[in-house]
């Protein structure tokens, strides 16, 4: 048994889950370990995120799941023509989740959820060759959601609830490729906004035609984060009326796109369960990152993004080894919403193959420790961002990118 466990762990070590754009798919250690499937799995309180319709199917009266991941994600870029190379030194991201559900009656459960499905933290070397596009960015959004889950009959349930989002952004880049002050320091701007809030919702349904098979669907609405009167801080600006950049405020919009998931889970026997999810993330809404500065002398910043809707295919396997150990493994293919020619180094994501694994250890009847990890494998890619302009001309920023992400995570599941 020990050997099987170790072997399983090892095999899973070659897989990880992450997602395109600035979506961070790390909303439950058990689900993540199974390739971030879960729309049709009834296992623990992670359902609050994956499909609230399933909460009412949980056997215990009180269910809770909390966890946190550590995202080690880095990117290397090089341009052969000019002999340039740069690596991100991004801070470790720590997306978390906390889910709670309470069974009011056999037919109705309520819940509360907090999770961080969107975010990004990328830090390139200051003044690197792409610094006119980004030096560093820190994007965070916390979703807080109240949930209800209603069992229509023993085979069918629905669930959902309103979402409150609180987000923040901090983004620094140089004003262009060469502007400096008298001392040769590069002119740059930081935009910073926090406490940006917005509302959304999610809803799902779950159908179980036979005991061993569940089918789920879940939709999470699009939420537009509207940063108003954020701070724009201009630094190292030459003392000249030709560069009228002074600290001001800004407005900007960042969409957190809608996501539709459909999936199945099939319990093959007492030990083995298989799950498949299909995600569609409606990235099409992210056309452009526009920053409007309040000071009319400062030209607004238009940055075409032109994202397109993207699909993710997720596969997961669960093996209940014994009363104490449950092992999980998974894989997903994550299609990038970023189109060729729009490859901006603030979210340098191409398609990825993701391998996941993990296990749960039942410490007592009520408490289990959940561990997972994700390895995202990106192909090396020659790409460019073609829509940066200088003197009215598009100046492409080109190079070879390679990303990697490794995300270990730890959580606790409680059933009372």
């Amino acid at each position, binding site marked *: 048994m020990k050997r099987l466990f170790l072997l399983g762990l090892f095999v899973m070590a070659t897989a990880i889950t992450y997602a395109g754009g600035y979506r961070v798919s790390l909303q439950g250690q058990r689900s993540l370990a199974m390739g971030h499937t879960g729309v049709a799995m009834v296992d623990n309180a992670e359902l609050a995120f994956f499909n609230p319709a399933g909460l009412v199917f949980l056997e215990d009266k009180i269910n809770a799941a909390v966890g946190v991941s550590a995202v080690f994600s880095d990117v290397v870029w090089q341009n052969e023509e000019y*002999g340039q190379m740069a690596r991100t030194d991004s801070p470790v991201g720590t997306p978390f989740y906390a889910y709670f559900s309470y069974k009011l009656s056999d037919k109705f459960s309520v819940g509360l959820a907090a999770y961080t499905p969107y975010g990004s933290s990328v830090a390139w070397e200051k003044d690197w060759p792409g610094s006119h596009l980004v030096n560093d960015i820190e994007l965070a959004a916390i979703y807080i959601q109240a949930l209800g889950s209603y069992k229509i009959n023993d085979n069918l349930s629905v669930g959902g609830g309103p979402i409150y989002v609180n987000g923040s952004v901090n983004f620094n880049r140089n004003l262009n490729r060469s502007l400096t002050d008298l001392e040769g320091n590069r002119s740059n701007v930081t935009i910073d906004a926090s406490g940006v809030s917005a509302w959304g919702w999610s809803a799902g349904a779950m159908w179980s035609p036979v005991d061993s098979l569940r089918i789920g669907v879940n939709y999470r609405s699009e939420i537009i984060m509207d940063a108003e009167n954020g701070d724009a801080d201009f630094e190292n600006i030459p003392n000249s009326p030709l560069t009228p950049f002074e600290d001001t405020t800004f407005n900007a919009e960042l969409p957190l796109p809608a996501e539709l998931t459909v999936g199945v889970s099939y319990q093959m026997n007492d030990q083995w369960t298989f799950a498949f999810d299909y995600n569609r993330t409606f990235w099409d809404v992210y056309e452009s990152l526009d920053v409007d500065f309040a000071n009319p002398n400062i030209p607004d910043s238009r940055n075409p993004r032109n994202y397109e809707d993207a699909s993710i295919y997720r596969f997961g396997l669960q093996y209940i080894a014994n009363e104490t150990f449950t092992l999980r493994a998974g894989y997903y293919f994550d299609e990038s919403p970023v189109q060729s020619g729009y490859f901006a180094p603030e979210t340098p994501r191409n398609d990825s193959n993701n391998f996941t694994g993990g296990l749960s250890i039942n410490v007592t009847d009520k408490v289990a420790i959940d561990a997972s990890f994700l390895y995202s494998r990106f192909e090396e890619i020659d790409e460019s961002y073609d829509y940066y302009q200088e003197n009215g001309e598009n100046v492409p920023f080109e190079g070879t990118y*390679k990303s990697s992400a490794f995300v270990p995570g730890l959580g606790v599941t409680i059933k009372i």
Partner: protein
Amino acid sequence: MKNYFKYIAILALGIVSCEPELENSIEDEGFYSNGQADFSNYVALGNSLTAGYADGALYISGQENSYPNILAKKFAQTQETSGFTQPLMNDNVGGLLLGGNKIAEPRFVLSVGANGPRPGRLNATPTTEVGNKLEGPFNNMGVPGAKTYHLLAPGYGNVQGVASGMANPYYARFATSDNATVLADAMTLNPTFFSLWIGNNDVLGYATSGGTGTFQINNTDVATYGANDITDPNAFAFVYSQIVEELTANAEGVLLNIPNVTNIPYFNTIPNNALALDAATAANLTGFFQAVAGVMTQVLMQQGASAEQAQAIASQYAIQFNEGANRFLIDVPVSQTNPLGFRQMTEEELLLLTIDQSALAQGYGSVVLTQGVMEVLAVLQAGGQPTQQQVQTLFGAVSGIDDKDVLDSEEIQNIETATQAYNGAIAGIAQNFDLAMVDVNEIFRQALEGGIEFDGGLITAEFVTGGAFSLDGIHLTPRGNAVIANAIITAINAKYGAEVPKANLGEYGTVTLEQNVQ
């Protein structure tokens, strides 16, 4: 139990090595190549252009963007090198102190005044003291102001000689001894590769003085030359060849030839036809010069010339002015054929950037029409005979541009002759010593005539806005330096089978904006 550790070790390794790696990383050995060249000890010799002098001064960020420094960074990507040192100034102000007294002005910056953007000297005090010796020698041995023969001149870096003009303040900062020569100092670094861009000042001093010096043709004794003289081409070739011979003892290298200095903004910014006239003023001026020609005819006849002779000579002063743009007048030596010593500029003649433009607006380069002059004109118009004094007043109203503010056709010819001869010598020496060569003359010509393309547009020789030349109109911007660095890389890659990556021109800046000017 052992197995546990093994697996844990493998896992831990997986975590540690999660840094993404490219299949063909430019950091891999052999990605780029130095070919048959050895860049391990690169030394750059030259003048201000090599030193990173820009905006009329030497200052740190200019030095950091010198073409040799750009090159050295690219060289370092092809092989292990011993680094590249430069005698950095003390600040980004520029200018020099000698014994606490300012002997060189701060840099130019672009300020915006009532009449739009214009270069001005930064309002700050230089802090670089010539007497504070740096521990030389440096890989960048570019010495602002150096002519070719200065590289071989002992004492050129003697601080004691700076005040009297016998030594160079920039070299004095880092010469290894009072008697050192630039070349000998460079050789102590045991260069394995060198670049040599020298000779510009052998003709530039003449050009920027408006051709007030002498073309020392056939005088090979450089000790007799003045600062504004053109070095004799034979002397140039002899000295240049001597320098290259010494440098090539253990090194490969690249030679850069001399751009025709008349292609730089210093000589192409103030148009020679900037005399803009409305119809009435043009008619007045034409009338004035007809009067001058008429009076001159009389004067000449009084001096005994025949009417025909007198008219032939005096008619050159009946200059026709038209509404719109007109060329200025310049002073020329008084001669029998041009007794008044002025004439209108020809199309190819050039005005210097430093000319007093407000004076131009007030009649410098044409006529200063005072009340007295108007009275004389009235007398003439009435058919009266002007007095001797009135004639003097009339002729004296003509205000030709001084020799120091203009390059006339003869002077331009001298410059071209010398430049061609120098470049002929450089090409020959490059061939003799089997070295790479860069035709900078052609690059500057391109910048002037069509511009050099880059991903952010065009780099031209336009003053202030063109991107190639700094605010002194002579020296290069960081972007201009990058153009030179790339040309050198092209030449080296071709000559030595090397694969040195290039500089991305758009990442290099041009002119610096600042309002705090003198």
